[in-house]
């Protein structure tokens, strides 16, 4: 029983991590109609910048700020130099260009930092684990991620649902042309949204540093899961991204944790391990296919 609670907690935490990435991606995709494969690169930039600042200053707060700032600046630069030219083009051109950006950023990072993974450690204050549920020692740092993720979700929700900027963003998702016709500077809005997305990716990267390996190409595996999240949640919707992220985090963790054991009670050990490993690695994609069959626009689409 305790194990189930612990695994639920793990799933939630993984989901929150995915949410930080998905929130930016879904806004960019939903509002600007832009497929940005380089979102994972912004995550990597956040992680590398945070690790570098952390090594120089020894301060986790500064590292976090450094990571977020670097990713936001990189996002601003990408939007300004590259993506601006792509809004009117079709998705294939966007995929090509942003894929090129992935290669560019990976090579640039190799040149700057080398091929060796970087060191990034959990800050002393958040090290170790606590038993806030008796019997389950849980790493403090992971709790902190849960908290930060929740906070960001609340802030974003407030921003989108309650403020004037949020209203423009929502309007942008629904009808871009009308927004432009009403005299809103859509260009500026796009830049702001993209930079916000980059900033969130950088935050995710900076926080991921101490628990994942900070290395060139770290953004790509996460990017695939992030796309699954926003497709499940419904493109362009923050609430959808949250729901999708938690669902993916929970399903992924729970199948990895319990499916092989369950199968072992039904069939020979080696077959159970092989099948369990296989099924749990496709579980998330099966979930996505199922949800798309049931609700082709995702769980909580942004409009309509």
């Amino acid at each position, binding site marked *: 029983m305790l194990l189930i609670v612990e*695994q639920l907690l793990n*799933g939630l935490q993984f989901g929150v991590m995915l949410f930080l990435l998905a929130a930016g991606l879904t806004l960019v995709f939903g509002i600007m109609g832009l497929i940005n494969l380089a979102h994972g690169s912004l995550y990597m930039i956040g992680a590398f910048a945070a690790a570098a600042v952390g090594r120089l200053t020894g301060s986790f707060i500064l590292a976090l700020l450094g990571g977020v700032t670097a990713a936001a600046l990189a996002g601003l630069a990408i939007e300004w130099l590259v993506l601006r030219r792509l809004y009117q083009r079709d998705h294939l051109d966007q995929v090509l260009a942003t894929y090129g950006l992935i290669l560019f950023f990976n090579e640039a990072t190799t040149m700057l930092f080398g*091929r060796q*993974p970087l060191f990034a450690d959990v800050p002393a204050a958040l090290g*170790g684990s606590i038993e806030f549920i008796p019997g389950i*020692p849980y790493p403090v740092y992971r709790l902190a991620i849960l908290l930060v993720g929740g906070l960001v979700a609340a802030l974003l929700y407030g921003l989108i649902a309650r403020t004037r900027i949020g209203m423009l963003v929502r309007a942008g998702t629904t009808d871009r042309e009308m927004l432009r016709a009403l005299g809103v500077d859509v260009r500026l809005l796009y830049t702001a949204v993209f930079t916000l997305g980059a900033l969130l990716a950088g935050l995710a990267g900076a926080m991921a540093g101490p628990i*994942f390996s900070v*290395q060139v190409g770290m953004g790509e595996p996460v990017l695939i899961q992030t796309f699954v999240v926003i497709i499940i949640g419904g493109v362009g919707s923050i609430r959808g991204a949250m729901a999708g992220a938690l669902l993916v985090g929970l399903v992924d*963790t729970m199948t990895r944790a319990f499916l092989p054991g369950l199968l072992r009670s039904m069939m020979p050990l080696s077959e159970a391990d092989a099948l369990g*490993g296989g099924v749990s690695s496709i579980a998330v994609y099966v979930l996505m296919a199922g949800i798309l069959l049931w609700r082709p626009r995702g769980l909580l689409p942004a409009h309509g």
Partner: protein
Amino acid sequence: MRRMLPSLSAFAVVAGLVATCLSSGASAADPVKIGMITTLSGPGGYLGEDVRDSFQLAIDQEGGKLGGVPVSLLVQDDALKPATAKQIVETYLQGEHAKILTGIIFSNVAGAVVPDVVESGAFYISPNAAPSNLAGKECNPNYFAVAWQNDALHEAAGQNVQNHGYKRMFILAPNYQAGKDALTGFKRFYKGEIVGEIYTKLDQTDFSAELAQIRAAKPDAVFQFQPGGLGITFLKQYVQAGLKDTTPMFVSAPSMDWHIMEAVGDAAIGVQVASHWNVDFDNPASQQFVAAFKAKYGRMPTYYASQGYDTARLIGSALKAVGGDVDKADAFRAALRKADFASVRGPFKFANNQHPIQDWFALSVDKGADGKPTLKTVSKIFEQHGDAYAAECKM
């Protein structure tokens, strides 16, 4: 007709000149070409970098020669793609007429190109990857593995756990061929109980589900094979989950090197490693190599570097025996088989399948004098250990 004669004779002169140039192109005075296909880009790039650099070190130490024979080293990056590696092999064999190839890091790349190389009559001398099929039924007189047979890495780890006396093990590896081979190799020498066995995803970033299972199973110790970045992630999360204080971790050599230690810091301390070489070996060849590598490149050599160096020196010993004439294939092969060089590992010889028979050692990660984690050799695991496939090789 008369007009044609001078031009014809001019043609003959030119043709003659070209022919002389061509034949002199293959004369013994020219350096022997060694074609290196290795992985230099991507997260695994530092492995190829170490093999290349140490190979070059061996050449530089002799002033551009190996075994007294001038050599030229060609290097190309396979980017961990078997198809790219195949193209590189073609340019080496057809374009450069190289007879000695080496350098591949990853088994999937080796599996794709080694058969092509040896069938063409050239030699492939592996500084790292050595998949099981090439050690057993498909062994080949022109294929040598200098490092180990893949399984031996994990067999040594299994015996290491056995020697420590742990009876209940939790083992995990990624769900792909090398991961499965790792756990099979481990179980070949570990005789106790397996309380949990997990195959993880190859692109996994979060291990909390597995860590919770480990905690619930309460094993004596954990054996994991998570290469490269996966290992860094796993180790960090293992420590943060508080498991390292209660449950010792055993790994095979690929899961712990200087780069990984640098990336995880203190989290590495206490991890038990099984390896065939370490920087603190006190034989003269090793001490000389470590000092020279550090002086030239300003970093600690990994065991990949030691393998690249040994490969170069082995090739040097055979080149010396045939006076640089690789076309004497039988004599060159016989010289390679003798392994007449001072390996940085100490005692070293080839089994009938041309894979190493060597000693394996238990290392542990300790805090060094400078406060940083360092690998320390503790004891011997295996004396003169070969591999499980040699019997299947009819050579």
